[in-house]
């Protein structure tokens, strides 16, 4: 009987803590959202399952958990804490990104810059709430709506916050259809939503090949700390556009990015062990993340309206919401909002231009914040 009782005490049932159970419910909810509601399933399914996995109670000290040295999960998690996975994801992202829309209408790049203002507002808000500068930067970068960038910067500045920051960043990326539309309706009038964008000019292959080189040189000269993100990003893009290494570009945008996404999702999810994750700071991060994302969206929308004061050919202010780098979720949302106002208005390509600019912008922001605080 003692043996049975001892065995039961050592099982998950015996070791279970209410915080683990709460997190298992949260993980299950993510899995439900991914499968039933199809909210960013590529992100939410691995993360949700990882949350459940990471919260299975176990005997500490046997090299099982993600925070225990020599455990398998710990080794896999190294890709997150070292910033390797974000770089690999950026490589694949570059090999997927089509910059022709941005090259055809370069002024849309300013919307990608404007949407990054949410990061700096949130940085101030986080400092005001008592976060240290390193923590505040990690929280603020959620406003860029870019999961890999958030993970990368947090791994460098505040590794103890990787779990909550990553979960918040990916959650808000998945919740774009819920967060962005009310802000768009609030700040953009019906008349403005009807503005049509001009047809885009044809972009030559030579321009597409030159851009990754020019873009990388300029951005990394400006923020050298962004090299681990922007280097692979523009390299992936030149592989795609040059057309001479199609096999490599194809591998980067399929097998490589998929592998990194699986590993980053699963390990970030597993890093949310209830006893580590459930604390007031995590709640604060989630709230500030929502603020950052909302301000970023609003900044983009307002800046687009500001640009219209000076432009002869007005741009649709909805495009400002796609300045956050949640690719392609925010672009899709802008397009759908535009179509609700006028079913014959197609904004998707223009929104993708803002989106790709947002990816560059948030990586530059991460590099700048890291540069300011690395000393």
């Amino acid at each position, binding site marked *: 009987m003692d043996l049975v009782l001892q065995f039961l005490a050592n099982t998950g049932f015996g070791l279970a803590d209410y915080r683990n159970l709460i997190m298992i419910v949260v993980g299950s909810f993510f899995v439900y959202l991914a499968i039933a509601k199809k909210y960013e399933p590529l992100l939410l399914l691995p993360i949700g399952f990882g949350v459940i996995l990471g919260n299975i109670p176990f005997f500490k000290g046997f090299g099982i958990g993600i925070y225990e040295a020599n455990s398998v999960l710990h080794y896999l998690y190294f890709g997150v804490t070292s910033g390797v996975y974000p770089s690999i994801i950026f490589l694949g992202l570059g090999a997927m990104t089509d910059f022709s829309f*941005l*090259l055809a209408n*370069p*002024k849309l*790049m*300013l919307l*990608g*810059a*404007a949407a*990054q*203002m949410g*990061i*700096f*507002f949130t*940085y*101030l808000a986080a*400092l*005001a*709430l*008592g976060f*240290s*500068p390193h923590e*505040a930067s990690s929280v603020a970068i959620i406003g860029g709506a870019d999961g890999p960038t958030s993970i990368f910067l947090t791994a460098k500045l505040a590794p103890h916050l990787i779990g909550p920051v990553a979960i918040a960043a990916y959650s808000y990326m998945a919740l774009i259809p819920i967060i962005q539309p009310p802000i768009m309706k609030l700040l953009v009038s019906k008349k403005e939503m009807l503005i049509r964008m001009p047809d885009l*000019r044809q*972009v*030559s292959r*030579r*321009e597409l090949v*030159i*851009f990754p080189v*020019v*873009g990388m040189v*300029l*951005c990394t000269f*400006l*923020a050298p700390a962004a090299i681990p993100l922007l280097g692979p990003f523009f390299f992936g893009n030149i592989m795609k556009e040059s057309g001479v290494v199609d096999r490599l570009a194809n591998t980067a945008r399929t097998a490589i990015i998929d592998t990194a996404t699986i590993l980053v999702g699963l390990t970030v999810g597993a890093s949310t062990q209830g006893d580590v994750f459930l604390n007031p700071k995590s709640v604060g991060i989630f709230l500030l993340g929502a603020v950052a994302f909302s301000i970023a969206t609003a900044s983009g929308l307002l800046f687009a309206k500001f640009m219209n004061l000076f432009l002869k050919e007005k741009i649709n202010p909805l495009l400002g919401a796609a300045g956050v780098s949640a690719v392609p979720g925010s672009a899709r949302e802008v397009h759908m909002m535009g179509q609700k106002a006028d079913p014959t208005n197609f904004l998707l390509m223009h929104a993708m231009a803002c989106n790709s*600019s947002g990816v*560059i*912008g948030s990586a*530059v*922001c991460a590099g*700048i*914040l890291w540069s*300011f605080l690395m000393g």
Partner: protein
Amino acid sequence: MYGFEAISQNNGWAIAVTGACIVFSGLATLSLIISQLHKLVALLDRPPKVIVDVDVEEEPQAPPRPECPMALEPTVARYLPLIEELEPEFNLADLYALAKRYHLPHPHLSIRCLQDAGKLQPLGDGIFRYSDNSSDKENS
């Protein structure tokens, strides 16, 4: 420490304003560069202003006729007896057959030389006649 005091203490205002300005100016510069990129590319694509020599295709010329391998006078002297064996108006093929029969060297070339020199006057339908007048003209 909380609020504005915490922001000031951590140099927050300066970091936020400077960071925002750097990002904005960086992307604005990139935007400016890529807005001019197509003009630069068009400049590179413009064909160079050079005078292009167009090779005019020359009219195909007939291959030079082989020169007479031997001197005209001995050839005439050699072929005249054969011509005399034939009718005054004879078929060129008969002269050729006769030359072959007597094993004269290069009968084809020799007959062509005689023809070119005007010693054999064509009458049509492959019929020729020996003509001595033209040789004077040729020599003059």
